[in-house]
């Protein structure tokens, strides 16, 4: 008995909401980056599940997952670089404290 597709999609949705809650609730910039990674991973799970179970044609969904891997690596590298250079200007990683550009 195989696990139905809907169960994977439900787990993916829950993981995505956990990531969203982390982005909204936490104030530490590094934890916000981690929560974004959780959201990206939930998307990957949904894409792979649909690709393996929903279409029997080819692996398009897995190809998108590979591209998401690339973009996530670039995103976390540039994001951490921005956090570090902001920390050098003002010694905090609290996103409520970094407000020099607030209008």
């Amino acid at each position: 008995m195989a696990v139905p597709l809907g169960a994977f999609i439900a787990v993916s949705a829950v993981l995505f909401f956990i990531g969203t809650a982390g982005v909204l609730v936490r104030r530490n910039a590094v934890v916000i980056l981690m929560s974004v990674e959780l959201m990206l991973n939930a998307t990957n799970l949904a894409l792979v599940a649909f690709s393996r179970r929903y279409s029997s044609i080819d692996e398009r969904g897995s190809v998108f997952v590979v591209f998401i891997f690339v973009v996530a690596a670039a995103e976390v590298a540039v994001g951490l670089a921005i956090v570090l250079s902001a920390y050098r200007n003002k010694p905090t990683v609290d996103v409520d404290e970094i407000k020099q550009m607030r209008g």
Partner: protein
Amino acid sequence: MYDFIEPALFAALTIATIASGAGVVLANRITTSALLMAFTFLNVAAMFLLLGAETVAMFQVLIYVGAITVLILYGVMFTPQSPRPYGLFFQTQKWWAAVFVVPIAIFVALVSFTFKDSATVAPRGGDLLPLATSVFRDFAFPFEVASVLLLAAMVGAIVLVKRDEE
């Protein structure tokens, strides 16, 4: 006879994924968050294996559990970590939040279980061959663009963190 193994594995992975994902958000110490994030990624990789996508699972372990976790841990190391200040807005309006979240959660659960497996069975024998065929035949140009994106991100990250030499 062994039909129960796959649902049992899936249930264990689901509990571990959601518990450690919630731990990333709720943990007080940021190093705990980072390590729980790595554990979440490992569990998702195991779910990829359960779906029969072993190549994607291997990439997941290499890139997420390996590279991104190490990068995040370096970020933790270079920045000062204070005890967690709680977000103020959401904790003061939790009943209103529950009123809005519960219908959304029920709706999402209903929608996600409407997706059924397609009647035709997916081809056996792993996902490496169809994945490679798709990447290098139909998506060859985006693949090259992705390499340029990685190069640009690497140069940008180096420029952003480089100290001014005066």
